[in-house]
């Protein structure tokens, strides 16, 4: 548990000084509250001895000060600690991204997409509670509790002892019990939540088919059972949470009674002034605020650690490809060859490609065809070095890809087609991805060569038109042409057209392919397709057979 916690804190990159300020503010808030009740108790007890009002001035000023200072301290503390939590969340998100970035796409294939979403969004979000409700409260409790015990002990050592015992019970034992009971349910809840999300996403995606086949019921039943499981765990968590509350009340109440008892006894024995009895009791009563948040903190911590572990599981996956220690200079030529390549994915036993050869001389146009399956996409993954071959080598400018920096390899290729993602943003943003410093004229030229210029001009918002989730607001042909325009904008010498005619009718498909080859100019083109269009435009057709 502690290693996971330490690693998660490392991932959040919070500065120690910020934590210290937050803890100090939290402790002051508690202590001002304790001060208010204790001085008020003293004030009333002293007043009951009917002294001159003037002699109460100090106590009256103290009561007023604590009354004003406490809400202010609380306000500043809450702002400060929330800011801290959000900073931590931002850091976690960015660092998390940096870690999974080298994994995509080959390293993430083993997760269900709904589950992956929960891990990446929900679990990462849940980590914001790590400091706010998990780590802060124990530190505050320690600081404030120590001051309370010290003060009580200064007046009556026995009262200090009873209070110390009560605070340790309420601040350590009770949270541990509550945390242990809630922890298991909390972890399972995170899992159950991911499961339920997956089921719902799947059901909604398949909704029309399920409606037509009248098969809603069995699928709904799966959701109901996932929901029942989540509800069951939530109920168990409630039992544990309620138990924590109950034990806290019990410990606090009995401690106050204990402090009261030893004070009464000390006063009867003459070792304690009578004005201090009520003061000590009220001090003890108020000081339990220091540990009040701890059972919830323990539960939060174990729940958050469940989320945290799921995040770490992703973060811990080692990228299968890396940069060499002494990389070659960027390639000057662009001849590419797969030589005797065998390749596959860790999740599958059999290789997808074996002893495969492919030659892409500069300026050559090659089509990769074959039955539906993963072989063709694997070639693209190998070229872009998302995947390393298990046998043979992929050569660029006569050197193994593994001898170059990954960025230099990828700068050689520009990807277009169905497999290229279209981001839910503007046309402009999608294009600029390929070359962020492109001028307006560059963009126009790329659009013209992809036969999109007239269409973009006809749009009221032009280049700033939003394209929707994965280009959902574009027609199939427009989407393919947009990815082509983006690829043309980059300076890469090799154009990879991965399924550029998917989802297109034959006329549109033929037009898109013709235009793509015309626009490619003297670049090397690798066309990956399962269709006939464009095969007459290439120099060579290579078939990928099932391995």
């Amino acid at each position: 548990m502690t290693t996971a916690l330490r690693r998660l804190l490392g991932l959040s990159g919070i500065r120690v000084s910020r934590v210290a300020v937050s803890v100090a503010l939290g402790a002051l808030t508690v202590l001002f509250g304790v001060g208010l009740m204790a001085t008020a108790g003293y004030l009333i007890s002293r007043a009951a001895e009917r002294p001159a009002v003037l002699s109460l001035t100090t106590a009256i000023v103290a009561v007023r000060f604590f009354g004003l200072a406490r809400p202010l301290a609380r306000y500043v503390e809450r702002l400060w600690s929330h800011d801290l939590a959000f900073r931590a969340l931002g850091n976690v998100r960015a660092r998390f991204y940096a870690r999974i970035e080298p994994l995509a796409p080959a390293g993430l294939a083993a997760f269900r997409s709904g589950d992956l979403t929960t891990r990446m969004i929900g679990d990462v979000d849940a980590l914001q509670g790590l400091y706010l409700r998990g780590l802060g409260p124990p530190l505050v409790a320690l600081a404030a509790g120590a001051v309370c015990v010290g003060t009580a002990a200064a007046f009556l050592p026995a009262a200090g002892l009873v209070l110390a015992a009560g605070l340790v019970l309420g601040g350590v034992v009770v949270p541990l019990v509550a945390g242990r009971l809630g922890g298991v349910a909390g972890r399972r809840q995170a899992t159950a939540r991911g499961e339920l999300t997956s089921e719902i996403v799947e059901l909604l995606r398949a909704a029309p088919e399920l409606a037509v086949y009248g098969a809603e019921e069995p699928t709904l039943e799966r959701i109901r059972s996932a929901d029942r499981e989540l509800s069951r765990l939530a109920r168990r968590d409630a039992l544990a949470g309620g138990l924590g509350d109950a034990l806290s009340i019990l410990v606090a109440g009995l401690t106050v009674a204990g402090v009261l008892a030893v004070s009464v006894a000390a006063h009867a024995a003459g070792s304690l002034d009578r004005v201090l009895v009520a003061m000590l009791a009220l001090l003890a009563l108020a000081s339990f605020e220091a540990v009040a948040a701890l059972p919830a903190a323990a539960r939060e911590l174990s729940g958050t650690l469940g989320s945290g572990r799921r995040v770490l599981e992703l973060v811990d996956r080692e990228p299968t490809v890396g940069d060499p220690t002494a990389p070659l200079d960027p390639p000057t030529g662009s001849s590419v060859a797969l030589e005797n390549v065998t390749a596959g994915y860790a999740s599958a036993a059999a290789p997808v490609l074996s002893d495969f050869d492919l030659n892409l001389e500069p300026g050559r146009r090659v089509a990769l065809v074959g039955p539906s399956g993963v072989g063709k996409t694997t070639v693209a993954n190998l070229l872009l070095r998302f995947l390393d071959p298990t046998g043979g080598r992929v050569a660029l400018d006569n050197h193994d890809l593994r001898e170059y920096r990954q960025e230099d390899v990828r700068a050689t290729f520009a990807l277009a087609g169905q497999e290229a993602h279209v981001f839910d943003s503007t046309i402009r943003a999608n294009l600029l991805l390929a070359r962020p410093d492109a001028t307006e004229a560059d963009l126009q030229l790329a659009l013209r060569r992809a036969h999109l210029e007239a269409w973009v001009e006809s749009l009221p918002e032009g280049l700033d038109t939003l394209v929707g989730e994965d280009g959902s607001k574009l027609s199939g042909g427009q989407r393919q042409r947009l990815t082509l325009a983006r690829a043309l904008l980059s300076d890469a010498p090799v154009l990879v057209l991965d399924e550029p005619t998917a989802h297109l009718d034959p006329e549109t498909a033929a037009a898109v392919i013709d235009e793509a080859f015309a626009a490619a100019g003297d670049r090397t083109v690798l066309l990956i397709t399962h269709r006939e269009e464009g095969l007459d435009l290439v120099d060579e057709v290579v078939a990928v057979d099932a391995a």
Partner: protein
Amino acid sequence: MAAFDRRLLQRAREARTALAADAVLGTVAALLVLAQAVLLAHVAASSFDGASLHAVLLPLALLCGVVCARAAAAWGFEVVGRRAAGRILSRLRLDLVERRLRGEPASRDGAESSELAALAVTGVDALETTFARYLPQVVLAVIVPIAVLALVASIDLVSAGIMLLTLPLVPVFMWLIGRYTENRARERWEALTILAHHFADVVRGLPTLRAFNRAHAQADQIDLVSDQYRTATMGTLRVAFLSGTVLELAATIAVALVAVTVGVRLTEGGLGFEAGLTVLVLAPELYLPLRNLAAQFHASADGAAVAGRLLDLTAAPPEPAIRTPGHRAPDLRTATIRLEQVTFRYPGRPSPALEDIELELEAGESVALVGPSGAGKSTVASLLLRLAEPTEGRLLVGGIDFSAFEAETWRRQLAWLPQRPTMLRGTVAENILLADPEATFERVQAAAALADADGFVEALPEGYETVVGDGGRPLSAGQIRRLALARTFLRDAPLVILDEPTAHLDPQSAAHVAAAIEGYRGRCTMLLISHSSELAARCDRVVRIEDGKTVRALMEAVA
């Protein structure tokens, strides 16, 4: 105080007994706190007057008893509250999903499946605080201050007067600031949705980003977006926390005022010590339920923001006209289907997807629907499947208007291959059986063979028992298509609608499928949507659609 959505209260009715029990438990716990205060002050005052420990043993023992009872009541309060909330939430979640599923699945109202799933799980959970804590706390916030004031007044009227003076300020501040917070919380929820969407889009597009060497640059973008989110949220919190602070200030000032006035009156001899001490110990309890309510209010404000969206979606038109009860659809083995002057508009789009469409499907004939992408071919399928209702015009089956009979009795008679079929998580066999759960394994195999799927399925290590779908064994688009086709064939329905059956298939598979479809022709009425002229040519008739309008039949019966 709060602008609380009435519809949420209606939801709460489902667990009203549990919620009422919860409020009672909470009230008992609060009254025990008052008893505790009285006993504590009594013991301290007795000691002040010189009593020995022995003399106060009975009140001390009573104090311990009260503490135990309080603990038990508090436990019950938490457990009962959460159970009640759990029941309501689970209901809400299932309603949302079911409503979505049984409504018009083809007409979207802007909520995408990932957003819906987030709402149904995380969004619904955000309402737990609302039901488990906030609602019972509302009752406590009314009952407890009255009890405290009554008790204090019975001891010392002046202190009760001081408390009464500060009390009305509290709800006023809470109301003012609470309202403001709610709007901000709604904005924050939207920001959160956008943020989640952005992050998901970036992660889905990672391979592309990496291919263009832009993955590193996106890390900065994520940092930037997170930072904007933090700034926006902190803005909300600065205001949200202010109301809590105002409340707490009122509470601490009142305690200080009571302490100081009681102190001064004690020196004058106008009040006894025990009375004064009891009032002081009771003073913070007056504000505690209100402060708890404020804390829950801010926590449940997030929930309320989600709730609006959630309730909008569950309260959508209850049951669309699509489900007219009573009448059974005519037997499609003999009935003719006619689309008369049918127009269809997607909500929010200016131009219709279909305009004045005329189409006739005679029992047993096969018709190919051809035309360029986006011409409206799949929309015709959606209408026939009753996944959407025509905006204008009529659909007649055997001369009877389509809306006159139950969707189920109609759908039972058809099979459909969608353009992008979905594999559910489960085995290959289960996925095919979706079309007819009663079918024998032999029939599943036969259907797979007919769709040319038997070869690759049998080559899988676990054959028909291989788990596919999300998280299962990945399948290529062509493989998914063939399994879905097997599903369609297993149905053995009188009307079969095939939307692009050979797209994404290699020529050999496509030929197999075309042959299978050819073998099927005549066994049922068939509407074939296709780009493939070869496939279309095998049908009895070819109808062309362009720009949502029918262009008359191009080719007359081949058979």
